[in-house]
């Protein structure tokens, strides 16, 4: 699925990586709030849905090779998180949907989980 479509489905605001919206293909996603879980289980190229908005999320994404980060739940995204995302070239989206719904709608659009890797 194209990132632009994902951003529409999630009604998301794009904070970084606008230039990749039309080209980036995402076919796996997962959700976690625990960065150690992400470090342990995430797969390169996946989309991460998380309730955290600290810069650690972006650093974790960069380290494990997560292609896109979607932040849910939080009202605001700290400037340093956005800055980190821009620095690492990772698209950063902010969706107003609850985490459960965000996962559900993407799943309904055939976005797979990470098991198939």
């Amino acid at each position: 699925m194209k990132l632009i479509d994902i951003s529409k489905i999630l009604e998301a605001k794009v904070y970084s990586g606008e230039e990749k919206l039309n080209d980036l293909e995402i076919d796996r996603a997962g959700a976690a709030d625990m960065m150690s879980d992400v470090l342990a289980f995430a797969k390169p190229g996946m989309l991460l849905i998380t309730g955290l908005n600290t810069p650690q999320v972006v650093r974790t994404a960069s380290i494990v090779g997560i292609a896109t980060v979607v932040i849910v739940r939080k009202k605001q995204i700290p400037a340093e998180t956005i800055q980190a995302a821009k620095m690492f070239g990772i698209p950063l989206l902010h969706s107003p949907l609850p985490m459960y719904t965000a996962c559900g709608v993407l799943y309904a659009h055939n976005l797979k989980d990470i098991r198939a890797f």
Partner: protein
Amino acid sequence: MKPTVDKLIDQMQMLFKDLAAKDLMVPNVISISPDRTMEQAKELMRLKKISGLPVVENDILVGLVSIEDIIKALERHRIHDPIYKIMTKNLVVVSPDETLPQIFDKFTRTGFGRFPVVDDQKRLVGIITKEDILRGILEEFRLLYVRDKRRQDVIDGEALNRSLITGEEINKLGADFAFSIDYVEVSLSGVGAARLKDFLKGRGIEEEIARKVAIASYEAETNVVIHSGSSGNIYCFLYPEYIRVRVEDHGKGIEDLDKAMQEGYSTATDQIREMGFGAGMGISNMHRYSDKMVIVSEVGKGVIVEMQFFLKDAANSA
């Protein structure tokens, strides 16, 4: 093959040479008082399935009843005699601070199967058998947790400049990558690992390996920020066959490493949990992604994590 084995044994000796009797012994030993009869000693040994029974009077070790002593007493119809008349009095004992090579030497020289461990007041504090030594070494293997004296040497002294895994010299000034960890600005946690990953990729290291190194280093870096209360450093060394990472701090140290190793155990604060850490997965993640890992810690002196990542193996299994 032989030279390899010899070399391995040498290295093992290096690793275990400072394991002391007090680390290996079984404390809370079953003992008997000298005015009991040999018959009672025999029964106790039978019930507890032990082949040597220390004889203790007012906490002081005065002798040992062996199977041989029991047989002698039976043969000479003296099984109802008090123990002190029959027991072995010339004892070879071990002090709690005697180290593995010294203990081993005693086993070899005497041919005995066990030694009582006594303190400088001659009080019995434990007993040590070859099985205890084997068990102690196996435990060390699981995670090389260097205790007491050796820990101090490692953390204070020149051992700091040697690899904890291979024993070879490490020149930290010559590290291929170095980063100093800012523990005050908690939000900077992870910057070092991210830079390390960039560095590795810049050096042409495969993504999959760079990723493993960075993940394990991220956890180590986060641990310094979360737990140490001190500054720390990340050093990375590139070798033709592997990558070595050292993460050091000079902080509080780990009180109970066995506990720290347990997945889910953490002493992290809410602020750390806000960041998505503090779930008690740090050490297990380091273990998961590195090929070899050694942690050395002394309370109040800091923690050193050394990890090795093989280039070939990683390439094959990726």
